[in-house]
Every structure is written in structure tokens, then in C-alpha cells.
């Protein structure tokens, strides 16, 4: 049994029309509907993640990776309606909940996002309050889940800082004084705070120096394996996915064009686009 499954996931920005799906995608060479102008960020995506498994999603900018990641992390705030002007269709099934996660009420969504499925945002500013302390950013997640005892919260934050290799002595400093790599680790600490079953990482290393990237990835890899948490890792960087993912999906123009074991995708790519992607690695 899979832990998390997505079936026919589709996200469309704009009004949408009957031609949207047929006139976009890999064969059409675009994700914008030529009839109504809507953007089909992703369409008909099917995927599943097992307990403790890491699923990679690769593709170039605009291929729909982040839209898919946000959809899976229930990041859109109001049921089937996404942020203004977008629509989400399909089903998300989760082992810890009955029914389609795209149809749950606000409170259930809030609870699942705080406990079961957490998102590490691509942009630090979307995930952290930079004026708050690093410890405060992590504590906020615990408070949302109902933690109330001050000492218990501080102790948990301290242990999460240690686990993700952030200097505990910096816990009470404002997050904007942290380096980029530390901010990324605060996001990871925050995402892990309530022992989620699944963590969704959207471009976990973008904007970081190579040495800092390696440290963030190694930290996440170690914690992910020790805790046995499942993860969905979205990246345009094949190296990131190669290092972390057991299985990988390749996206282009909002569609999954190929999927398989990560080493098989890297060494025996079948789809023309995957072959181009692999051959383009510098």
C-alpha cells in the first residue's frame, strides 16, 4: 500500500476550456492552451510514494514541478480552488485519511499540513518569517500542532537544530541574520518538527553555493533515512535527485513523460526529452 497517491492531478491557471488538455502537453510542445490561453501547469499526473521512499521530480523551469509539489503538499488554501484563478482536479489519497485530500475542509487541511505532510518552499521567504528568530520559526510549527509547554517546545527546537546541524547558539537570533544554507536547514527543521509522514521539498538547493548544497542535502538524506520519513524532492538539478531519490518522474510541459528507478532514468533514459536532459548535464 502506498503512503501517498496522486491520481489524474491537474492544475489549470485561467478559465480553462474543452481543448485545454488536448492542445497542451509534451506532444503539443506547450503548456498554454491556444484556444483559451489558460496555462495547464500539470495534467493527468499519476504518482505514488511508499513509506520511507524518496520520489524525485525533475524537469526544466515551467514544466509544472512546483505546481505539482504544492498541490501534493496541500499548499493551496481553499479546497479544489487554488490561489486566485487556478483550479485543481484529481485525487490525492493518503494512508492516514479517508477520501480525497483535495476535498477536505479547512480544518482537516490545516491539521494534515501541520502534522502529516509538510512542504519546504522553494523561496525561503514563503516558508519563514525572516524577522522572527530561527528557533521561533520552528516553534511556530509546534505551537500550531498544539504544543503549549514552553520548556518542552524549546527542548524540541534545540534537538531539531542539532539534528539539522544548525548552531544551537544562534537559536534566538533573527532568521535574516542566518546564512542561506542555515535558513534552508531551518526550513527543513521546521518541516520535520511534527514528525510528518511525507516531506515535500521544492528545489531544496537553489541559490546555495555548491559546498552548502552538499551539506543541506547530506543533512536531509541522513535525517530522512534515520526517521524513515517519505519525501518528494522537486529539482531541476539532476544531481540532487540522483543523490536523494529512489524513483524519479520526468516532467515536461506539465506532463510526466517518463518515470522509473532513478539510476535507470539517469543511465538508460528512454524518452527523447529525458535523453536531452541527461546529455545536457555539465
Amino acid at each position, binding site marked *: 500500500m502506498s503512503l501517498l497517491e496522486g491520481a489524474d492531478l491537474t492544475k489549470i491557471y485561467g478559465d480553462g476550456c474543452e481543448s485545454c488538455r488536448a492542445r497542451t502537453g509534451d506532444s503539443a510542445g506547450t503548456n498554454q492552451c491556444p484556444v483559451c490561453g489558460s496555462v495547464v501547469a500539470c495534467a493527468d499526473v499519476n504518482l505514488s510514494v511508499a513509506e520511507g521512499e524518496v520520489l524525485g521530480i525533475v524537469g526544466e523551469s515551467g514544466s509544472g514541478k512546483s505546481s505539482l509539489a504544492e498541490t501534493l503538499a496541500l499548499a493551496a488554501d481553499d479546497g479544489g480552488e487554488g490561489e486566485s484563478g487556478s483550479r485543481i482536479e484529481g485525487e490525492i489519497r493518503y494512508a492516514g485519511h479517508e477520501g480525497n485530500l483535495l476535498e477536505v475542509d479547512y480544518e482537516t487541511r490545516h491539521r494534515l499540513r501541520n502534522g502529516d505532510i509538510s512542504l519546504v518552499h522553494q523561496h525561503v521567504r514563503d516558508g519563514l518569517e525572516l524577522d522572527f528568530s530561527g528557533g521561533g520559526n520552528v516553534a511556530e510549527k509546534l505551537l500550531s500542532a498544539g504544543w503549549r509547554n514552553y520548556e518542552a517546545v524549546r527542548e524540541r527546537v534545540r534537538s531539531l537544530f542539532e539534528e539539522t546541524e544548525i548552531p544551537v547558539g544562534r537559536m534566538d537570533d533573527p532568521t535574516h541574520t542566518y546564512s542561506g544554507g542555515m535558513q534552508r536547514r531551518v526550513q527543513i527543521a521546521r518541516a520535520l518538527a511534527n514528525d510528518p509522514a511525507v516531506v515535500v521539498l521544492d528545489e531544496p538547493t537553489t541559490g546555495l553555493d555548491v559546498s552548502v548544497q552538499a551539506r543541506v542535502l547530506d543533512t536531509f538524506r541522513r535525517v530522512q533515512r534515520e526517521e524513515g520519513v517519505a519525501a518528494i524532492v522537486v529539482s531541476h538539478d539532476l544531481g540532487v535527485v540522483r543523490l536523494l531519490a529512489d524513483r524519479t518522474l520526468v516532467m515536461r510541459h506539465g506532463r510526466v513523460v517518463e518515470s522509473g*528507478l532513478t539510476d535507470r532514468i539517469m543511465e538508460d533514459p528512454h524518452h527523447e526529452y529525458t*535523453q*536531452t536532459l541527461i546529455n545536457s548535464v555539465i
Partner: protein
Amino acid sequence: MSEFESAPASTPLLAVENLHKTFDMHALGDKRVVGLEDVSFAVERGEFLAVVGESGSGKSSLLKCLYRTYEPSSGRVLYAGPNGTVDLASCDDRTVIDLRTKAIGYTSQFLDEIPRVPAVDVVARPLHEGGMAVDAARERAEMLLSRLRLPEALWEAYPATFSGGERQRVNLAQAIAPKPRLLLLDEPTSALDPETRAAAIDLLREFLDDGTTIVGVFHNRDVVEAVADRVVVLEDARVREIGPVEAFDREVIA
């Protein structure tokens, strides 16, 4: 539906049947490259089968097809596991992942190192993740690195800075540490000096005595003659000959 059928104890551990692998290179006008053509052979439990042949004859392609790093185009790779027989050529990805974790090891001649992980942990971590206590895993890792003559000063260093031969020792130690039932080796000793190669041969012999089955690509005839039971010779993507190691001229092997 079960992926497993029960297998009698006499079945070979691995039975490769009519294995084909072709690559379609889309960037080259859909040029089709043949990697393997109608390859069949069986490997008995506890046997060491050496794969030899010239560069480009399909040796690495064969090992990658067995490990599913390459997806076979047709044919079967029947693996007789403790819970029954699995066709590695067609079973689902999660079954492959599970078998790689528990039963099938693979190593190439190049170490796929992880940034910032010291040599000893490259070997110890998978053991720990497989359930062994941290101390026991590190102890086993150190024992293997020491037997493969990796200087103790390098155990806590990052393999990214190692020489080819040093990396190969870490690589080999990592592959054999979990004692897989089936070990696939792609030239794991090509960069080793003769003494280290002899140490590697000793280790592999012990593994065979413990019941591990090995399919290995080797260029050094001393390794093949010291440990292999049988030899399969590949030529132009096909099996040219297969037989006991004694039946081959030394020229064929090296």
C-alpha cells in the same frame, strides 16, 4: 497477484533467458544501438561466474540489465529468492528497490560517492540503515577497509579526494559489507595494485564460502583464475562461449 512463484531448491539462483537490450538514441535520428542480443545462461548458488570479452562486447550492459539500471528490452532474468522466483527484467520498481536493499549488491569500477561522507561511513551507513547498530556497522566497515589495505589515516577522510585505487577499495568494501546473496561486480579491481588485488581475492573467496553468488566482470586473469568457477565470453553483444575456467586459454580471459 503475486510476483513470486515458489522455486525448487535445485533451481539456479539466476537464470538469464534470451535477454535483449537495445538503446534508441533519439538525438542521433533514432539510431538503434544493440547492447545485448539473445543472451542466456544460468548461475548456480554459491558460484562465481566471470564475464569476459573485449571492450564494447556488452559486459557492463549485461551487469546493468541484471541490476535493472538498464531496462531489458526483452527476455527474462529469473532470480530465485527465499520467497520465490522474481523476474528482474519485468518486476515493478519497488520490488527491485527491495531486493537491492536486502539481497542484491552491485558495484562499478567508479565510486558513486556522497559529498561530505567519510570513507568509513560510506561503508557503515547502509549497514546501519539496514538495522545494524552504529558501533557494529563501523567496526565491520573498518575491518573491511583494513583488509583491503586502505590506510587508517583515510578512514575518516572524504573519498572525493582519494586516488582511483583508494576509491575502488571503498567501493568494493561498500558492496560486500551487507553480505548480499547475489553480488554483481563490474571491474572492481581494475585500479588496484597486485597486493591489494590479492587481498580483494581473499575477501571474495570468503564470501563465496559463505554462500554468496557472484557475477563479475574482470580484466585481470589472475583474479578470474583465482576465484571464478565458470567463464562466459561475450562478443558483439552475444554469448560466444561458456564453460569452466580451466577450459579457456589464458588469452581469452585477459
